[in-house]
């Protein structure tokens, strides 16, 4: 795999994992508030 492949895989996967983690944090903090 070339450098561009590594960059795109890390950025894409990273962005999606960050989105999931963000949503999970929001869901759990919302539950605590209730």
């Amino acid at each position, binding site marked *: *795999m070339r450098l*561009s*492949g590594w960059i795109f*895989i890390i950025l894409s996967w990273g962005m999606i994992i960050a989105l999931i983690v963000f949503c999970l944090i929001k869901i759990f903090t919302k539950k605590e508030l209730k």
Partner: protein
Amino acid sequence: MAVAGSAIGLGNFLRFPAKAASNGGGAFMIPYFVSLFLLGIPLMWIEWTLGRYGGGFEHGTAPGIFHSIWKKNRFIKYFGVIGIFGPLVILIYYTYIEAWTLAYSFFALTGKYASLTDQASMQSFLRGFQGIEVNQFFNGIGTAYTFFLLTFIANIWVIYYGIKGGIEKLCKIAMPVLFIFGIFLAIRVMTLGTPDPAKPAWNVLNGFGFLWNADFSALFSAKVWLEAAGQIFFTLSVGIGVILTYASYLSKGDDVVLSGLTASGTNEFAEVILGSSIIIPAAFVFFGPESMQSIAKSGVFNLGFVTMPLVLNKLPWAALFGFMWFFLLFLAGVTSSVSLAQPAVAFLEDEFDISRKKAVKILAVALFILCQPAIFFLKNGVVDELDFWGGTFFLVFFAAIETILFAWIFGMEKAWDEIHKGADMRVPKVYKFIIKYITPLFLFFILVMWLWQEWIPIIFMKNVIAPNKIFVLCTRVGLVIIFAVLAILVKISWGKKKAQEENLR
């Protein structure tokens, strides 16, 4: 959970890796993420909000929801018919494809295709199964039809028990199982290494490289941008009408901002992380770089039912992995097809005041009849035709209507307040501008470009061979009849309501 279940399906595991590999690899992710943030996520929020708003007026489908938004316009409810027609048309052929996944999980377990080692024989196996040819594997369409009946009964059974009893329960079991299966298979592929030491270049890292190495020249092609936008549409199930129906069951206090974002995130995880880690890297390892271009461009069906069984055959415990893979796709298919049935059922329930169980019975009879041409005339292009109108053309058209209604007729200020009712987090303010201007312009651009580049030859049947033209024409007549029947039902229902209102006065 149900929306995520509806969005996760064949598109994630087969369509995405094939599109990415043949449209610039890693560079495809630039138009893909641009489309996700400018088109996919805004449309998710629009549909969730419109659905919940319409639910407040006891409307669970697009005709009623559109009418609630623009009461003065007596024609807008007929545009809403697309929100029932589209999913119904997709459901007609999707049920049959879903049945193939169930059949292949059974074939994997019983070793029916275990001895096949090349693309030609597996292709022949698939054609025999579909009833396109009689060969040493199948002597007719009987097997495929049996699996269709089993799938049909399973789907109707889940729909019959409704959102809470059927779909939610199914998603609660199927979704985690699906993710665990997906992660398990992805890890198995990642640990394949170099199975044939005589071919050191055929290794899993190069397989990932085939999918992710960037070809930046692809960014200058309009086709690549359209493919990325199309993938976002298919994968998130936006522009179909399904999300509107699910969201209509929400209450004012439910958070549509977070729900829309979470459904998108879950779907993207299944697609970009799991979808990119299974079929393309595995096919590269076993078939090598020379075969990969043709494999990636062979279409979703060939990838799923020809290449993938061959790849699975080469893994240790092939029967188990084969069963797991196809059963995973079957579960994903059930959640998607059950969702596709929701708008039609909700329409009968809401607008004609009939019970859910009675509505499901009516749908089951109609759907069973409508599925038959897709099964028996598959080789004559009926499924392709249904997919074009139900799964492509009307998707973009419907999304464009929704966006204009939401941002321009309902009004952006009111729409912004409606999005945030019950929401903990605020949508970034830039999305006010994106939803009002960028998303509709982007949709308009896609509509014009697709019409110009791809749709005109399809509409004029330029690629249809002469003997199939009559089948394609009959399919179109059938589609017009379905649309007309739905439009007449809308007219009858509104007529009844008007008469009731006048009687009350």
